[in-house]
């Protein structure tokens, strides 16, 4: 039997149909980013369903409330435009939910209609619907452009556009901006820890740690303790530099900040794996006088130690991976460093730059042996077809990979978004050196579990 019984190895060229996508749409990214502002309520300007779907997906992934409001478009709004809905929403939201910020993102509907959010916000302001000190920000996130990653990037950039302010000529020494990109709360916490260990004052935005991994304390905080405050967002304009992790999700905000407030920026790979974390730490050295504390070097050394000790189990193993470009590039680099062989690399997020970045990581020779694909037909159906043609040892991707995992009997390491059938990703980072140790542990567990399961009895191993 097979769960995906209609998937065969007969690959036909498709132009129009996407089957089992390796991406989703912009607004959910904007919503996730907005949750990383302290006391911010994301607002979906469109039909109710969008907001419901995004909240559900975020809740399934984080096992946390994901609060957001919606303009609840009806047929009328879609004919006459959503201004009335948004004005009413603003009024209700400030009355009932009292956020510091409403972060409005659009949907395919309001974009097709052509609603002008800044103009509506202006109207709201003129009508006195925005209480003193409260803010409305927005990002245009048409679902028919880019992918969920784009929406995240757009809302992150909106934070700069609306808040960043350069107050002095001199930048604040030792203060840097950290744009972590679309990673888990635990990853953001880990990056902040590293910045702090490097002796730097970091302003991290967006920051979903302590928001989407909130404790259970028998009280419900609509706005948990975490998130970047409006004051911090304003102060980003005075930082000595910006470190943007992941060009797709964090690049636009860093560039906007450079253009708006002349904050120099470095857009780096997401610090997943040893080399990408090295690059991250190296760039932090630009701001702290070059010192790397022994504790960081020791963490790095523990990672190298583990890789060295267990290298035989990594060597030569083939991997199919899918997800978002920023993650995939760093993951691929790390797998290569582990002497593993990425074989199929798939992202639904469109953008040819991805192909170039992967080629850089793999090298001219090796990239030829790998199928790398982006865009609408770079979907999980296609990847599964490739696997049917030639198997791999490991899958790395989101929960939807579990169908392929079971059908093909290939272990799956859940990474990326969404992960809705396991917990742990919220709490334990995969970024940084410690995160890389966790990734190694997961990869090893996958392979060693298989070995324990499949080895003939006479070669069942006690020690590994």
């Amino acid at each position, binding site marked *: *039997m*097979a769960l995906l019984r*209609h998937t065969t190895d007969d690959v*036909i060229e*498709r*132009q*129009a*149909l*996407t*089957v*089992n*996508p390796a*991406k989703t*749409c912009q607004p*959910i990214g904007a919503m996730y980013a907005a949750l990383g502002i302290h006391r911010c309520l994301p607002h979906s300007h469109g*039909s*109710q*369903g*969008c907001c*419901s779907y*995004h909240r*559900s*997906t975020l809740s*399934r992934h*984080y096992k946390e*409330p994901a*609060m*957001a409001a*919606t303009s*609840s*478009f*009806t*047929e*009328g*709004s879609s004919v006459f435009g959503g201004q009335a*809905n*948004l004005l*009413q*929403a603003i*009024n*209700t939201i400030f*009355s*009932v*939910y009292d956020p510091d910020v409403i972060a409005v993102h659009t949907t*395919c509907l309001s974009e*097709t*209609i052509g609603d002008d959010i800044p103009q509506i916000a202006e109207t709201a302001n003129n009508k006195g619907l925005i209480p003193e000190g409260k803010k409305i920000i927005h990002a245009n996130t*048409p*679902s*028919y*452009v880019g*992918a969920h990653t784009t929406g995240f990037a757009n809302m992150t950039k909106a934070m700069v556009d609306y808040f960043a302010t350069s107050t002095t000529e001199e930048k604040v020494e030792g203060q840097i901006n950290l744009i972590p990109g679309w990673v888990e709360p635990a990853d953001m916490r880990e990056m902040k820890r590293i910045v702090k260990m490097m002796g730097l004052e970091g302003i991290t935005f967006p920051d979903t740690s302590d928001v989407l991994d*909130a404790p259970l304390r*028998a*009280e*419900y*905080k*609509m706005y948990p303790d975490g998130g970047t405050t409006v004051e911090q967002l304003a102060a980003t304009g005075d930082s000595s530099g910006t470190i943007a992790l992941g060009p797709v999700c964090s690049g636009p905000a860093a560039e906007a900040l450079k253009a708006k407030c002349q904050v120099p920026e470095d857009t780096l790979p997401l610090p997943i794996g040893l080399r990408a974390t090295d690059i991250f730490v190296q760039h932090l050295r630009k701001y702290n006088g070059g010192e790397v504390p022994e504790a960081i070097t020791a963490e790095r050394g523990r990672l190298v130690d583990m890789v060295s000790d267990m290298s035989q189990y990594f060597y030569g193993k083939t991997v199919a991976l899918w997800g978002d470009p920023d993650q995939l590039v760093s993951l691929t680099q790390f797998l290569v460093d582990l002497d593993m062989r990425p074989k199929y690399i798939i992202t639904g997020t469109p953008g040819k730059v991805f192909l170039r970045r992967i080629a850089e990581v793999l090298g001219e020779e090796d990239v030829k042996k790998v199928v790398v694909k982006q865009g*609408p037909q770079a979907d999980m159906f296609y990847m599964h077809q490739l696997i049917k043609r030639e198997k791999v040892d490991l899958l790395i991707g989101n929960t*939807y990979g579990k169908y392929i995992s079971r059908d093909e009997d290939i272990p799956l390491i859940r990474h990326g978004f969404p992960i809705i059938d396991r917990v742990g990703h919220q709490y334990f980072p995969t970024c940084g050196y410690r995160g890389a140790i966790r990734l190694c542990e997961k990869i090893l567990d996958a392979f060693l579990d298989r070995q324990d399961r499949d080895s003939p009895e006479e070669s069942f191993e006690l020690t590994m």
Partner: protein
Amino acid sequence: MSTDRINTPDLKTPSEPFEVTTMTAEQIKDELTRQYPSKVKRKRDKQILLNEKIEEADGTLTLPVINANTRTSPGIITQRGCSYAGCKGVIMGPTRDIVNITHGPIGCGFYSWLTRRNQTKPPTDEHDNFMPYSFSTDMHDENIIFGGEKKLKAAIQEAYDLFHPKAIAVFATCPVGLIGDDVHQVCREMKRELSDCNVFAFSCEGYKGVSQSAGHHIANNGVFQHMVGNQKTEPEGKFKINLLGEYNIGGDAFVLEDMFERCGITLLSTFSGNSTVEQFEQSHWAQLNCVMCHRSINYVADMIEKKYGAPWIKVNFIGAKATAKSLRKIAEFFDDAELTARVEKVIEEEYPAVRKAQEEILPRTEGKRAMLFVGGSRAHSYQELFAEIGMKTIAAGYEFAHRDDYEGRKVLPDIKIDADSRNIEELSVEKDEEHFREPQTNADIEELKKGDFFQNYQGMMADMGEKAMIIDDVSHHEAEKLIEMCQPDIFCAGIKEKYAVQKLGVPCKQLHSYDYGGPYAGFQGAIQFYQDIDRMVNSKVKDMIKAPWE
């Protein structure tokens, strides 16, 4: 009637009034809406009621009027979804052999991919099952600008070339209506072109109607138009029924299928749990339609009755007692001694385990208090299950129901359709002269018609305790306040509410997804539910919430 029918006693049907420690029901109600802007407050005041039932001299109940199925105020954090969700996700989702193509940007197709737990069990490996797949035209800006019909056509062709399905359905998402893609025309063309594949579309753009309920209606109309009646020869079976409004969440349909089989009842089709195109196509041959979720599907029952003649009854297989009652009602319709005996035998076989479970669990659950805010029927039907383990429902409401679901079908003539729902098509159905049959039963059909045997749904409020709180389209704000003020032992809702509720230290049972558990239908399902609730309301985690230094 068999005289040795097994008794299905109420272990406890609590009807005490709504009670909280320090506040009156009225005070609580006021507190819920205090913070709203006045316009919103006015609206919500018509949607939040205390269940004050007035029994008239003739024994009929007069219930407060609830302002259901109206649009949610923008800015309110609501449980509701959209028309697309109701059409593609709820109604069309559970049918395994249709390739469902979402025509729109990628999101809608992505989010509705496998998230509803409609289980399906193809009889063999060779049978189609497209449910684990998500198909989309993944519209991009150029499709929005220049129109998406060409891409849709190509996508249908590609789906056909890849899978050769019996049927392909197309679902329009928000921008599709706006840019004017004629999805129906495209489907007609492709149906003609492909010749051995039924292709049809749904104009279920997310902005239609006020909730997913609009989508249910659109979907059911489509099922009725494009599939029901296509099978021209009568299927086998002495007692043939359809089950309407059962979506096989967590395997509920499997339990019911098994139960019907043991009773000797032929289930021609389920709309649409564990369903197939073939089932829909033969469904008009049923002698009786049994409606589970009144909200999502009662119009299909009406249309079938009008066109083909089979009457419908309301059934409920949530709750052991309700299950027994519903089975007996079906038997009563057919009025066949053998059938009645088999139904009683099944009840007799199943009920002891139910009672044993109730007796074991009741001491741990009795007197505990539940709140249910979900769906268009579950917030009602699950109250029975709670009652069976001695739990009281102190507040309840639907997410996307209409007045009749609260107040009963008697209010149907009074319901005004507002602007937001007006554009949902009402099919005009006529008698099918060739296939129309008078009700096929031994029973005195006219006698049955006199009572409340057919088409009888009393609604939620009649069954609830005095001054229980009834809230339509509950908002996050209201739910949070309600929990803080009333401290229920369990709160039933969906994934969006779950973790906020649990942050307050109250377990939240998802009644959309069953928290990935179930089945909860029928007798075995009831036992499963008792156990799950017992686990939740008695979990040790409660004792761990406060740190010793707090």
